[in-house]
């Protein structure tokens, strides 16, 4: 293969298409939709990168992966080198390559995108990460620095905590991860479905951290099992990355009917508790007509899950239009391919029940877009008198989550904002010395990669805090 392509030759290559499971087939299983690129496809796609001088993609990445460098190694077919670069910058590349909203990050600022399609950075990241998972023997053996003797407690084993754990372990610090649930991964395990992020990926990434010496203790609910103060006494520093584990309720009539779920409950039953498998005892209501309220990634995950659980009609009910939907483009696109219906400019008014307390319908209000609100998105306004009823037997509320107060309620000195999120400086430091925080507990409901970015930058701050502590 020719190594030194001219820019013109690079520009001539068309962006690769991700091989996908056929929509009709995939709505009958929970296997991954995106099948991953072949090596040939990946190298060809890597050759589309112009290796530009400005390298805007790096700044577009919340964890600052040296994207052009790993892509250049890949373009030359040097997979071990590509993997080495990627793994050094990103603790969870196989996760990011699957769930990051690249279209608003690295790919949005790609120079190649000014004329035509940007380089498929996400696909390439996934390819290199998967190759690394499959070929651990071909990776350079990681040499850990000598132990510093310092101990850090990490609360929550989601994306922020896992990233933090990898970064600190590689600096020689002792790390213990505390997880409230019975398995690791946080939202990567209970929230994101198998068809988007197979759980074996989370297992392998966690095992890699354990190989670095990271200790993991599940079933520890910080705030209940131990308090923040107790952790501060036992450890030199604490990082809080316990997520936004509290569903925002709809607060409408009928919310307590049988068949109404929060997205957290619906997805946890299916993902963490494997309710979709016949050989597992966890029950879930298999709705025939399912309405999911919301327009984010969680809403897409829930509605596509309902389809796979056998629904005839799976419907998104969203109060704005598609343009305002916070979900990744790919999720919306995949959902449409799978026959998900989108009812836009509609807000739930009441969940209707039958005489036995089961959901039988959803009463909705027609909306229109008004003036922009604080978030810059046009505010949905009710159109007086225009309502309609949907006949459904399951309703899933995916309008959002807030900070879970279990930990903060037992740490009265920790400074919070008015929504209950922990206040930090730009490095993740809280008002308490040695206590850092990141991810959704600081941001409110955000993304996996922003949580990872927080974990990475707070790790630098913790490392320098520990050095000063000497």
């Amino acid at each position, binding site marked *: 293969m020719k190594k030194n392509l001219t820019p013109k030759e690079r520009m001539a290559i068309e962006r690769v298409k991700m091989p996908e499971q056929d929509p009709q087939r995939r709505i009958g299983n929970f296997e991954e939709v995106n099948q991953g690129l072949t090596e040939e496809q990946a190298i060809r796609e890597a050759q589309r990168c112009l290796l530009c001088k400005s390298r805007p993609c790096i700044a577009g990445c919340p964890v600052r992966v040296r994207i052009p460098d790993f892509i250049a190694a890949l373009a030359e077919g040097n997979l071990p080198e590509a993997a080495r670069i990627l793994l050094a910058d990103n603790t969870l590349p196989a996760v990011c390559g699957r769930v990051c909203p690249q279209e608003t990050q690295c790919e949005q600022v790609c120079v190649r995108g000014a004329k035509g399609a940007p380089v498929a950075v996400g696909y390439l990241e996934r390819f290199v990460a998967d190759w690394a998972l499959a070929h651990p023997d071909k990776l350079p053996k990681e040499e850990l620095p000598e132990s510093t003797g310092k101990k850090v407690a990490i609360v929550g084993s989601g994306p922020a905590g896992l990233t933090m754990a990898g970064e600190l372990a590689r600096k020689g610090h002792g790390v213990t991860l505390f997880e*409230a649930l019975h398995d690791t991964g946080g939202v990567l395990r209970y929230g994101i479905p198998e068809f988007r992020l197979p759980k074996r990926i989370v297992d392998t990434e966690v095992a890699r951290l354990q190989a670095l010496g990271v200790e993991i203790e599940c079933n520890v609910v910080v705030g209940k099992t131990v308090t923040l103060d107790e952790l501060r006494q036992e450890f030199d520093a604490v990082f809080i990355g316990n997520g936004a584990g509290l569903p925002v*309720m709809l607060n409408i009539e009928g919310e307590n009917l049988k068949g109404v779920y929060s997205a957290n409950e619906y997805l946890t039953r299916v993902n963490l508790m494997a309710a979709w498998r016949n050989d597992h*005892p966890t029950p879930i209501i298999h709705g025939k007509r399912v309405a999911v309220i919301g327009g984010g990634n969680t809403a897409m995950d829930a509605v596509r899950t309902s389809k796979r659980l056998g629904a005839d009609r799976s419907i998104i009910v969203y109060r704005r239009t598609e343009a305002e939907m916070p979900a990744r483009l790919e999720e919306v696109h995949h959902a449409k391919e799978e026959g998900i219906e989108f009812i836009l400019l509609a807000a739930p008014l009441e969940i209707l029940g039958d005489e036995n307390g089961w959901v039988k319908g959803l009463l909705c209000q027609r909306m229109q877009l008004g003036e922009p609100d604080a978030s810059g998105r046009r505010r949905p306004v009710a159109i007086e008198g225009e309502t309609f009823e949907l006949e459904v037997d399951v309703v899933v509320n995916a309008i959002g989550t807030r900070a879970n107060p279990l930990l903060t309620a037992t740490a009265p000195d920790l400074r919070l904002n008015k929504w209950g999120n922990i206040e930090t400086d730009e490095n993740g430091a809280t008002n308490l010395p040695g206590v850092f925080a990141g991810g959704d507990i600081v941001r409110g409901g955000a993304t996996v990669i922003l949580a990872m970015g927080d974990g990475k930058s707070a790790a630098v701050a913790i490392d320098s805090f520990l050095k000063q502590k000497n």
Partner: protein
Amino acid sequence: MFKVLQNDTLAPNVHRMVIHAPRIAKARKPGQFVIVHPEADGERIPLTIGDADPQAGTITLFIQAVGASTLKIVTTPAGGSLRDIAGPLGKPTEIEKWGRVACVGGGLGTAVLYPLAKALAEAGNEVTTIIGGRAKPYIILADELAAFSTDVLVATEDGSLGQQGFVTNVLKDLIDNPDTRPNAVFAIGPVPMMRAVAELTRPYGIKTIVSLNPIMIDGTGMCGGCRVKVGDETKFACVDGPEFDGHLVDFGLLMDRLSMYRDTEAKIMAELPEELRDKIIKVKR
């Protein structure tokens, strides 16, 4: 893994298990519960902590086999272990000085009542305990409760022990007598029993606390599956409870929501081998 140190049968299908769980033993207060996840593919089962020994690092759980996962828990012998136990969860009981209190337990609820009654007695309350059950073998912990109760009164449906009838009959007699009328009532047991107690005390204006056990997954407020209506508000039993003012609880909704998976439960039960099925008690919820 959490090691089972002791597993006794107290009544048909009712087990008392002592389990090594040092962190929980140290943090636990009366009224709190744990979530037990017996094996990798099991369900997460909320169970009230009956007792704890922080020195020995152990907790005591009282469990009745009512389905496949609870059966898995009670059939774990001493020396065996349970995969996951998370806790202590929920709010501890608010122990106040009421003066005279009545503690009412029905079936397995008596075990949940035990640590609460003990804490009330230790705080200087005069505790009258009422235990109910189907028949004599189902009356549990009478001796243990007698150790700190002024009186232990028993009601069985078939009259095989104590007064024939329901705990509410016994409680009504207490209330009707000015010398024994309680200033507060704590009722823990099947939902119909707790509802009946709350209805009995309501006209008298006697403060009545009940402990709710709705369907739950994480126990940390994350899923909202355990929501109950208390007064005009929706509460999460796992973080706002499990104890609530019995006069404000919507028991009808609670019972209805508990029936959500009845079909699935019946299906799982039907698939169990017969000898195991016989070990499971059908509980009136």
